[in-house]
């Protein structure tokens, strides 16, 4: 114990005011927002990186285009072959990669926040397996095109989610019962999927498997518009409910004390999360691991205590664009489904996470 109390204080004590934030107030306080500086910077950097990669992706391929030419094509200043390749062929795919990546980041953030679990995902309720079943039925039995497959996947996924919910419902929903029911139903559907793949011709089975891995190949402008509209609607809903996530994370009692209606908010948020996943699956198949990895990576970069939706969205967009570049060019001219790449990257991320935890101990 120090006894020299008489010693004069040499330096002013450093007071920790917490993280640096910027407050935004407009319209007489009706719009008021406090933004963490580090989160802002990280999100901006991620977005910039994602856009830069997107420009690079627009130039890469069998017919390569230099970056300045890509930019001028995007600004509508070029015509002919360059315009055709960049704007008509490649832009829809890159745009969709950005949008879907962001959607998966948000969806992952919602579920990880709701379940307070780094491994939480819409998969718990068997959505993706059901979507694959729906898509397989359309591809193998009905031989439908892109939109038919999307519809099949949507129906399959939603019916599965509803079934799991029903099986688990008995005077309310208990988390553990929901998970077990999800596993049971998923296991049954997975074996249906295996059987259908076995019985199909090799060619059909391969194209179904490509869909099942999640792929952005053969995307055109026709498929971008529906995604933009749905995404906009879901984001609008989310802007009303999103801030309650942070309150819900404090635990049920604290959230209730702070004025959050628990069940209603949870249901809306979960529905939006499932809808985002459904949108991604319908557009490009079940792309794995982005919704798992993006929120956690963003959380570590922003050094915040919980997963944030905006940084997660930026991270998701960045990850999917990067993965798609790898998927397109690793074995060019053969194109891998992007899901194969995201799974590998996601797995490596988990291993890295484990290694980091070891170091910290």
């Amino acid at each position: 114990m120090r006894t020299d109390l008489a010693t004069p204080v040499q330096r002013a004590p450093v007071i920790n005011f917490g993280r640096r934030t910027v407050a935004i107030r407009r319209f007489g306080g009706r719009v008021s927002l406090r933004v963490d500086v580090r989160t802002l910077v990280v999100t901006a950097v991620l977005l910039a990186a994602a856009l830069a990669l997107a420009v690079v992706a627009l130039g890469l391929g069998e017919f390569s285009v230099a970056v300045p030419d890509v930019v001028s094509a995007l600004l509508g200043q070029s015509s002919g072959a360059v315009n055709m390749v960049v704007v008509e062929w490649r832009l829809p795919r890159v745009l969709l990669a950005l949008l879907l990546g962001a959607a998966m980041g948000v969806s992952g953030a919602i579920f990880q926040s709701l379940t307070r679990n780094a491994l939480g995902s819409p998969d718990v309720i068997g959505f993706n397996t059901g979507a694959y079943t729906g898509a397989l039925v359309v591809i193998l039995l009905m031989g439908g095109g892109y939109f038919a497959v999307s519809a099949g996947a949507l129906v399959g996924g939603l019916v599965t989610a509803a079934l799991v919910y029903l099986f688990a419902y008995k005077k309310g929903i208990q988390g553990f019962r929901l998970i077990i029911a999800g596993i049971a139903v998923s296991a049954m559907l997975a074996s249906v999927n295996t059987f259908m793949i076995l019985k199909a011709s090799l060619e059909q089975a391969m194209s179904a498997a490509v869909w099942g891995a999640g792929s952005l190949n053969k995307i055109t402008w026709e498929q971008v518009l529906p995604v933009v509209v749905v995404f906009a609607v879901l984001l609008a809903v989310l802007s009303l409910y999103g801030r309650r996530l942070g309150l819900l994370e404090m635990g049920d009692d604290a959230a209730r004390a702070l004025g959050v209606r628990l069940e209603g908010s949870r249901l809306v948020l979960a529905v939006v999360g499932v809808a985002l996943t459904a949108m991604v699956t319908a557009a490009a198949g079940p792309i794995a691991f982005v919704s798992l990895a993006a929120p956690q990576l963003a959380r570590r970069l922003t050094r915040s205590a919980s997963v944030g939706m905006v940084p997660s969205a930026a991270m998701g967009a960045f990850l999917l664009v990067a993965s798609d570049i790898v998927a397109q060019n690793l074995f060019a001219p053969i194109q891998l489904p992007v899901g194969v790449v995201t799974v590998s990257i996601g797995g490596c991320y988990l291993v890295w996470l484990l290694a980091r935890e070891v170091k910290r101990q």
Partner: protein
Amino acid sequence: MAVNRYRLLGLLAAISALVLVLWLSLAMGSKDVDFAALWPAITAYDGSPEHVIIHDLRLPRTVTGVVVGIALGLSGALIQALTRNPLADPGILGVNAGAGFFVVLGVALFGVTSIQEYIWFAFAGAVVATVAVYFIGSRGRGGATPLRLTLAGVALGAVLGGISSGITLLRPAVFDSMRSWSAGTLSNRTWEIFTTVAPFILVGTVIALAMARPLNAMAMGDDTARSLGANIVRTRAWTIVSVTLLCGAATAAAGPIGFVGLMVPHVARWIVGPDQRWILAYTLVLSPVLLLVSDILGRLILRPGEMQVGIITAFVGAPVLIWLIRRRKVSSL
């Protein structure tokens, strides 16, 4: 004591069910044979077509089914106890992905085509994956904690699965062999396959049964287990050895068969409570019952064709699981 008597009676009932299923498995299939002909076919083999079917086709298939069922069930029970995770199954430690990855490599690089050759690739893959998961999960001071093992298994499984599907999607021939392997089947199992995997499964089973008591202590948490005198590091290591042997051999013999390892230990736990000795005993008997019943159904559904047992197990098991969770309070670990 009264409780133990009920448990024992239940176990006897399960064993009689197993015996019944064994006989059914010999008798039923694309060609039904007389029950009266079963015993002579085994003891006094005379080479008639009926005896050939029973002795050379269904008998090796049935005994392979029994050992594979035991291996899947026991490994599931051990992994659930070890990771204290009720959702854990052999798949979660990356075993199936590892086996699948090596089979893909075998088909793609070495042109392997027959089951006899698949076995060794699958076994090596399962062993390599489990060992790798254990080493990734057990680095650092905390050792192989349940959460880290699970994460490591999921991560490695994802990477290997991703690379496997990348390779198969690039090469249609490999894709074609893999889709039939990945369904998991007991058809065309010869005595050779049985004798190859049985020793591994036997050793794995012995180790598993020896782990029942230490795992009971571990169920109370690491600190309590330590104070009860259990050696945590040694228990974990031996459990992993046993799981590796069991899963590796089962996957090698029949391909990845899901759900048996996940479900049977749950059912056993619901019947007998948390004592691992009883759970393992019940699992030992009930897993082959589930696998053989599924296999028989697979033979009957598409007569004269067959449906792979790996496809049936989920359809037999899942409704039972849903019925159980709706009926009872769910058992936690």
